[in-house]
């Protein structure tokens, strides 16, 4: 954790700090050395780094919303994406927000579960998203449903 990250954590709600610290081992275990905690552009805490997919690193930022963990993390990438790329929530400049959760998923396995899921879960979902992107670029078909099955 950088010195700026430590300073940033001191400005946050105590429960958000506690939550981030609780999740830190999971992130470091799942993606060792790939992410660092920092302050995002809107003053929100975020993990910034990359996920490996097919031998290549794909940039990813996992931002904690202010109402975390009630709301899931927001996944953004600075990877240049085709204009017609599906499953993009929105674009802002060079940054695209990945759609990784169906907002009203009826299947509990496709829902954000604050009791069980962490930023590491979101990072794994992003990996899957990038894999699907590669298939789409190659074959023109998005191979998986929108929402990530959290239990895979």
């Amino acid at each position, binding site marked *: 954790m950088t010195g700026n990250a430590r300073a940033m954590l001191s400005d946050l709600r105590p429960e958000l700090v506690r939550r981030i610290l609780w999740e830190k081992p999971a992130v470091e275990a799942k993606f060792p050395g790939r992410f660092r905690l920092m302050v995002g552009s809107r003053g929100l805490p975020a993990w910034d780094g990359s996920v490996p997919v097919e031998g290549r690193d794909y940039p990813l930022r996992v931002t904690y919303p202010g109402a975390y963990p009630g709301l899931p993390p927001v996944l953004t990438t600075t990877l240049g994406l085709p204009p017609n790329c599906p499953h993009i929530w929105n674009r802002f400049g060079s940054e695209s927000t990945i759609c990784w*959760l169906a907002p009203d998923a009826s299947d509990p396995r496709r829902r954000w579960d604050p009791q069980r899921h962490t930023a590491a879960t979101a990072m794994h979902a992003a990996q899957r998203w990038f894999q699907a992107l590669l298939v789409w670029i190659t074959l023109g078909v998005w191979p998986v449903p929108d929402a990530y099955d959290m239990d895979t």
Partner: protein
Amino acid sequence: MASWDDSVGLEPNTVPLMLPHDPREHFRGEPLVELRGAEVAVLGAGSVGGFASAALAGAGVGRLLLADKERLSEDNLRRHLATQPGRAKARLVAQQLRRRFSGVQVRAEQFCFLDRPERLRKLIAAAEIALVATDNEPTKYLVNDMLFTLRKPAVFAGVYGGGWGAEVILVDPEAGTACYGCAANAVGRLGVVIDQGPAYVLQRASTRPADSPATNGHDHRAHGNGSSGRSSGQTAEPGAELNGSLTPHTGRTNDWIQAGLIGVATAANLAADLMVAWLQARRGWHRALRAFQSAEDVSVWQFAIRRVPVWDLGPWELRKLAVRGNPACPQSCAPPPRPDDPPARDPALRISADSGAPHDDSPAHTGRPHSSCRLLHAPADCRCKAA
């Protein structure tokens, strides 16, 4: 009649009546536990929050902090305490309370809890106990998180099963209850639906096929939070859709019917009574809370007015559930292990071994009632008397 040993040195008829029409004058045989100094935060001034606020004020709670982001709509009128569409719900309820209960101090705020979590936190910190009567799960999990840093209690109230099931959950970090997340998992609500549908509506029987996926008993779109959530396994009551006063909420006219005041008032009164019992216990009179709980670890109450299939309950049945926190809970709400508990798996090792999320496979999360005692745990873990 209550024993005076249960009270904190209170004598009958010595506590001054604070209201012009104080209902407590009809219960002079019982000890009067003064709640004028109690401060309660009501998060969500919708149907449940509004009526619960009135019940709390009527029970003598002296200070209420109401908060809700929404304005009253025409659709709400059939089950809401307030009567003026277009105005902020919290302010309308506050007006009603001041008009009816001259001794109560009420403050109303209008803001979105998810947009302003710091402001929400201040409300919870200022109160002795909070009522969470919001209509969305994200807010409940956000509040749940705050309760454990602030060490404050809350009662989560909701209407389920198409409006015919009332559920309240007591979360009290100081008393060691399970957190809201563990309790919700225990009753079978897994995860958060981010963008929920309209208020606890019933679909017309004629528009939904009998084998619709929505009849799955574990369809957790039936999140009747506050007054919200689709029905699960409920078909419309015969004749209910003929009520000309019903206004479809979603714009999908003739498809959805909203349930009404009966379920709302039940949930509101159950929540208010529990909160009053908690406040009384904090002031030395424990009888009411003991009557509520009746067994160690009881922190969830479900009451079905009609048959609620997803609960396998009703009509007119009350279920009390004892829930133990999951050892891997982010709030660390699990009690210390008992000598005969199975060995707990190290949550840190589980985190590293899977997708990054701790798993909640403890007995409290089986989601199915144990047939002998109807509590939500595996038979091997049952320490209750058989029903």
